[in-house]
């Protein structure tokens, strides 16, 4: 079905003579509006991004402000672009890519603080394992939940743009000896780790959290 292109508007910023999609009054805007994240301003730019639309719906496009970020909501059904001849042009689904921030290192004062994380680990271990007794059945689940708990606690105190690896060792206290060692290949200026141990009468726990800066 061919659509008549609207008349070109002069003096549009960005690209000359790009045809805008029409926005008829009957468009279901209200139902679509509330899905938009509150951060994006509600204005269109003349460069529309086009996604695959074999079932092209006539909604207005979700467009980020120039230089802004788009939420990763997956492929949207957007308008198809209309060419000069009036035939619709369909383009394949484009992956949403974030713009490059050109940040190679963490900001000043925003590094992984090993002593702070260690304190958090120690308090979390003491609180959750304070009077627990080791048992073979619950040991695995306890270790698992402990790992998740420590990871979430560490995430609260660690600056943004850091990836975390949290490792927990939980064992029964017997007459054996145990040694845990770790080595890493990373950027020593921005990455670090913190570890804490806890033991009571029947069990011991060793927790390590590595923080890696995500460039």
């Amino acid at each position, binding site marked *: 079905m061919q659509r008549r292109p609207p008349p070109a508007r002069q003096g549009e910023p960005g690209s000359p003579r790009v045809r805008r999609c029409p926005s008829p009054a009957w468009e279901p805007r209200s139902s679509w509006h509330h899905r938009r994240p509150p951060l994006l301003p509600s204005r269109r730019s003349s460069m529309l991004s086009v996604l695959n639309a074999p079932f092209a719906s006539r909604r207005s496009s979700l467009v980020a402000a120039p230089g802004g970020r788009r939420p990763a909501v997956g492929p949207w059904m957007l308008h198809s672009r209309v060419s000069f001849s009036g035939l619709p042009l369909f383009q394949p689904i484009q992956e949403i890519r974030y713009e490059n921030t050109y940040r190679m290192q963490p900001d000043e004062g925003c590094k992984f603080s090993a002593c702070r994380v260690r304190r958090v680990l120690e308090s979390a271990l003491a609180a959750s394992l304070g009077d627990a007794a*080791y048992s*073979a059945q619950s*040991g*695995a689940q*306890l*270790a*698992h939940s*402990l*790992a*998740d708990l*420590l*990871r979430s606690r560490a*995430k609260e105190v660690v600056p943004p743009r850091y*990836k*975390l*690896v*949290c*490792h*927990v*060792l*939980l*064992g*029964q*206290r*017997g*007459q*054996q*000896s*145990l*040694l*845990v*060692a*770790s*080595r*890493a*290949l*990373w*950027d020593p200026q921005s*990455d670090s*780790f913190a570890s804490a141990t806890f033991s009571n009468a029947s069990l011991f726990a060793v927790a*390590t959290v*590595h923080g*890696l800066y*995500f*460039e």
Partner: protein
Amino acid sequence: MIFNADEAHNIVKECIEGVLGKADYNHNKVNQWTAAIVEQSLTHLVKLGKTYKYIVTCAVMQRSGAGLHTASSCFWDTTTDGTCTVRWENRTMNCIVNVFAVAIIL
């Protein structure tokens, strides 16, 4: 770029066998064993030439009938990052090696 866990598994297993092979638990040597395992594993992983940051942890425990559980939880990009765990044991000791690989975006 997806982390190839099988490749890492083979590399680490060879390193452990090379270091611990037929030895019995010896408290004095455990330090250098763990250091050697970790160092060799890391060196071989780096030789793969992939753009990853690696974390290798190794736990060696004397076998005395006590139970041991390990767990890990990671906050990363699941499409590019991955982990691999290798368990090895002989008559007198247990060895658990974890490899975590975190991708660098170039």
